[in-house]
Structure formats: structure tokens, C-alpha cells
């Protein structure tokens, strides 16, 4: 049974990053689309399945599709946009660092390079909010190092 955690509000402006893009032969300043930056995050622990679920909430929510990364991790990605909307991790097998590594791998294997900044922001959020997110996971499922 999942325990519901409140959404942790994020400040998307903090995760903004600017880059340069060439359009029609000219270089333009482009920042991340606000649709690619989560507005909120939350972590839930599913006691029955011993799975920890991290969810991201975006400006424009959409249906998600599941993508099995390996036996311990499932990613939930936006059906239309491909954005990272959720992560299901087997907490008996891995800790937060291991989850971050799987996200890295998923971003590298991602077909659309457009999504890389979105995955990078998701990773940054998990790292920065690790304490708040992981607090729902019972102590016995929190490996010492990963």
C-alpha cells in the first residue's frame, strides 16, 4: 500500500539553463522550455511491492507509458512528450545514487536527444531533494551506500 506524500513545490526558475541554438542559419539564445521543468516532485513508498516511486508534476500533465530499464527500475515517461514523469525503484536493491545512475543510462539510451535536459533536471531534483523524498522509505530499506 502506497503512502501518500505531499507534493514538494519546486522553483522551476532555479533549474533553468540557457544554451545557443542555430535556427535558419542564425544563432539564438534559447532556455529550457518551461514545459520540460517539473513544478513539483513527490516520493511514495509501496510497502507491498517494496518499491519506491518518485513522481514529477509538469505544467501540462499527460498520460504516461512505462519503460523497464532493468529488473530494479521502471521509468514512467510522457506518452506524447517522452518526459520523465516518474521512477519506480526497487529499494531493497538500490539507493538514491543507484537510481541516478539508471536515469543517466536511460538518458543516454533515449532516442530523442531533445529530452536530455529534462532528464538532467530530474536528476538534479532527486539529488537536491533526496532527504525529503527518501524519508518515506523505511530505514531497513535504505542501503548504507550505493
Amino acid at each position, binding site marked *: 500500500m502506497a503512502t501518500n506524500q505531499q507534493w514538494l513545490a519546486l522553483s*522551476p*526558475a532555479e533549474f*533553468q539553463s*540557457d*544554451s545557443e*541554438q542555430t*535556427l*535558419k*542559419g*542564425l544563432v*539564438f*539564445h*534559447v*532556455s*529550457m*522550455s*518551461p*514545459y*520540460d521543468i517539473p*513544478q513539483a516532485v513527490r516520493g511514495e513508498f509501496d510497502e507491498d511491492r517494496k518499491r519506491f516511486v518518485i513522481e514529477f508534476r509538469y*505544467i*501540462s*500533465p*499527460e*498520460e504516461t507509458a512505462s519503460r523497464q530499464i532493468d529488473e530494479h527500475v521502471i521509468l514512467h515517461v*510522457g*506518452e*506524447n*512528450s517522452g*518526459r520523465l514523469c516518474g521512477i519506480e525503484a526497487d529499494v531493497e536493491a538500490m539507493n538514491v545514487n543507484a537510481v541516478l545512475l539508471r536515469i543517466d543510462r536511460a538518458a543516454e539510451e533515449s532516442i530523442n536527444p*531533445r529530452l536530455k*535536459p529534462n532528464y538532467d533536471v530530474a536528476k538534479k531534483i532527486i539529488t537536491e531533494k533526496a532527504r525529503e523524498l527518501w524519508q518515506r522509505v523505511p530505514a531497513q530499506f535504505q542501503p548504507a551506500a550505493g
Partner: protein
Amino acid sequence: MGTRVAELLQTTQDFAWLAVPSCLFLAGLIGLLKKRLGDPNMWAFAHELLDDFRNKVFSDAGSDYQHHHRVTLFRHLRWVFVRRRWPWSGWLCPVERSGHTTQVSKALFRAPDEADDSEGVAGLGWCANGALKIDKLPELRKGSNDDILVSYAASTGVSLEFVRTHLPKTRSFYAVRVEVKGVPWGVLVVDSRKETINFSKVDKHYDVLGRYLSLILQRI
């Protein structure tokens, strides 16, 4: 009286071959138009949102005219009735704008599948991978030399002829592709006659606008 009713029924029957398909066609056309135009209440709400966003982003504009700093919502349509141009190439049409002036816009920009052929800042915003920020554009005047006009045209994705004819006064832009349920819907363009826009304010306030727009546009 009875005879007249009978005559009326007879006439109706005689022209049924024409009246029935015409009515069906008309009903279909009205349905299509209604779908394309959307719910007027939702558009009124969208207008309020754009006004609110505009006022937050340009809170330091003081007594400047409303139309010197605007927010315009463009909708991407696969076809539009246009003269002398291919109507099915994909277009960005202005559907809502902040303020109460410059509401009748003739601006219609191409946004075809072939991204290199997109036009205007809206077109560039449609194909950019993120939010486009353009500022410090030159101030155009009658008699501005060609180099300045060419530079302005290239930076805003329009033709030299367009710039020469209209001498646009906008000096800074922000354009972002608007999405509904993860699907591109159109483009939101912020433009200002000031040399630059406070982009961090745009980033800060877009969250609320984007969230409500997404909800409204699902119902339009």
C-alpha cells in the same frame, strides 16, 4: 387553411432532395466552425490570463501604452485560407492577445513540417527546442540603412521586404511552444518595444500561465 398546409407539405417534399443534404452540410459546417473557434467563455478566460501575465512581466512599464508590451497566443493550424500561398503548409494564427488595442492582427506565420521554412518569431519559437529569447534589436526608422534592416529581418525570421514595409518597432521577444497534454498546440510570444525583456520574470510567471492555459486549451 387545410389546402395551404397541404401545398406547403407538397412543396417541402418536392425540394427535399435539395433541402436535406443542404441542411446536413450546413450543420456539419457550423459544427466545424464551432470546433475551430472554440468556447467564447474559455477565450475570455485566456484573455484574462494573458493580461495578468503581461502585467506581471511588465510591472515596471509604468505609463507605457499597453500595445508597447504585449503577449500574443498563436495557434498552429494545418491549413488556413490564405491568398497566393499554399494553405496546407501549417500556419501560426494569432488567436488571443493581451490588452484592448492591436487586437486585429494580420500577422500569420508559416510553421510547416520543414522547420527551415518557418516564418517570424512565432515560427522560430515553434521549431526551437526551448524558449527563444531575442533582445537588443535595432531601432528602425524611415531611412534606416539596409544592413540594419537585413539584420532585423534575419533575427526575427521575416523577409527584408516585410521589415522595409512595416518598420517593426518591437525590439525584444520571447517565444515558447505551448503544449497541451505534451502535444504542441501553438506558440506564445511576448514582445516589447524596450531594448530587452526581463526574461527571469517571464520564466518565473510562466508556470501559472502555462498551467491554466493547458487546462483551458483542452476545452477549446
